[in-house]
């Protein structure tokens, strides 16, 4: 387990007020928000977003300068954010947690559905370091494939795969990973998406003896490594699959040790 000391400065820990500058509809239930403000953050870190009349919840960061995020309506908080307009305010606590670390020069990014947002941020940062990037995006249907145009803008053509074949190949993200691994020989695999997909990516990466960095989701309350709510439950997450040594036996807190786990 790699646990970095969490020496956040207090300024990153209280809420800062951000103002919406642009809103883009991405699909039937997803919007991208670009704010007037920037936030110094690493790809893979997260923020706690607070709407005072509603709630506070963790969200991934899709870009830092200016701050941007892509939000899918799945609950009252994300619906609340998705009803914000240009000029509206949002309260941001963070960045929190450990983000991705760029390792090597050839990176394979694997996104499951809405896990694509932090990987866009990672792709942009990796390009600054002259990395070759291959992107796999998997989702249920064509309607759930997001941000492809944003990758195209930076010269990347994602490999797309859907469960029903309505866009790209028919299948799941890990099928497409196989092709990329053969052609690109990546130095490291990065993934963000549902738990089951992460487990499959992990298995595939281990099979090919590739270092991998996976971004996990959890119920989050304090976001500060204190309340214990976001401990990755070993049994729940690894029943019948090969456990990641990073959180074997758990005690692993998604908010503080993660959200990104490192295979090495």
């Amino acid at each position, binding site marked *: 387990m790699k*646990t*970095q*000391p*969490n*020496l*956040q400065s*207090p300024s990153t*820990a*209280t*809420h800062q*007020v951000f103002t919406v500058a642009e809103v883009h509809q991405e699909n039937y239930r997803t919007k991208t928000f670009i704010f007037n403000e920037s936030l110094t953050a690493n790809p893979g870190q997260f923020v*706690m977003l*607070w709407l*005072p009349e509603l*709630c*506070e*919840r963790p969200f991934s960061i899709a870009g830092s300068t200016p701050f941007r995020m892509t939000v899918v309506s799945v609950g009252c908080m994300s619906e609340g954010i998705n009803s914000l307009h240009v000029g509206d*305010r949002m*309260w941001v*606590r963070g960045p929190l947690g450990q983000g991705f670390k760029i390792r090597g020069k050839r990176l394979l990014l694997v996104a499951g559905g809405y896990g694509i947002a932090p990987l866009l941020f990672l792709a942009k940062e990796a390009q600054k370091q002259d990395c070759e990037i291959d992107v796999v995006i998997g989702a249920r249907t064509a309607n759930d494939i997001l941000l492809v145009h944003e990758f195209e803008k930076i010269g990347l053509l994602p490999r797309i795969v859907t469960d029903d074949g309505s866009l790209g190949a028919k299948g799941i993200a890990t099928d497409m990973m196989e092709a990329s691994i053969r052609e690109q020989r990546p130095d490291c695999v990065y993934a963000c998406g549902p738990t089951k997909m992460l487990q499959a990516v992990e298995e595939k990466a281990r099979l090919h003896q590739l270092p991998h960095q996976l971004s996990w989701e959890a119920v989050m*309350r*304090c*976001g*500060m*490594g*204190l*309340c*214990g*709510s976001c*401990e990755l439950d*070993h049994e729940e997450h690894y029943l019948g699959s090969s456990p990641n040594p990073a959180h074997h*036996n*758990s*005690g692993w*807190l998604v908010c*503080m040790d993660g959200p990104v786990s490192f295979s090495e």
Partner: protein
Amino acid sequence: MPQPDLTCRFLDLTLPNPLVLASGIIGTSATLLKRAALAGAGAVTAKSAGPAPRAGHPNPVALDWEYGVINAIGLTNPGAEEEVNMLREAGILLKPLGVPLIASIFAGTLEEFSRVAATIERAQPDLIEVNISCPNVADDFGTPFAASAESAAGVTEAVKSAVRVPISIKLAPNVPNIGRIAAAVVEAGADAITAVNTMPGMLINFEARQPVLSNRTGGISGHALKPIALRCVAEIAASVRVPIIGTGGVSNGRDAAEMIMAGATAVGVGSAVWYGGVNVFTTILHELTALMKAEKFDNLEAMRGIILK
């Protein structure tokens, strides 16, 4: 000079060092309690369990402000019955590490305190800490029992009559005379005292025009709590002879040494886990060792209560 001896005798227990994971901090599972022990804690305290499962308050529940941490988690817990399983599992993991397990309980009435204590005792923790001072559940439980000597002593008697395992009563800092309350709970049978719980407070976000925590108020811990805790521990140590787990804002070795000088037998560590990660226990121990060496303290006893002499 040889290394100072950090072994800490607390009642009949021998802790490898005086640092105790404070209740409410990552004490929600056996694996997290084990992690704190592996990180260097000399004893670990589970998060408080009550008569029934509680979800706690909605977010926001905690944040750092410039001089400390404030939280109102709202006693999230699985209920005493389920807690027994967790504590048993924790006990198995902790035994080979030689790190004692402290359970923590809360309740709304004296009868419930007796019942919860008796339930938790089945897990055979080394000590039961009795949380009569959570500042964040006034809606459900009213004024904390820690507010007066009479009610604090009442809970102590209720718990003491229900269990054989030693108990420590966790006191609140926001009382006019903590020494008097300490004397009352010791008179009522407390084997030890944990001091202190968080200090009630409020943060307001100017732009939001409202308090930040969903509970509106919360408990202040971290740096801001340290001088308050030191004063409380010193007053308790001057008033009673039972061992004290001095808790409040201890973030480094110097803080820990000061807490022992104020009269604490062991030293609680909580919010420092935010400041320095779980491995902060190791850091504090290294600093404490170096400080004791520099000032020629051979053991904890040589420092303990030195300001009271």
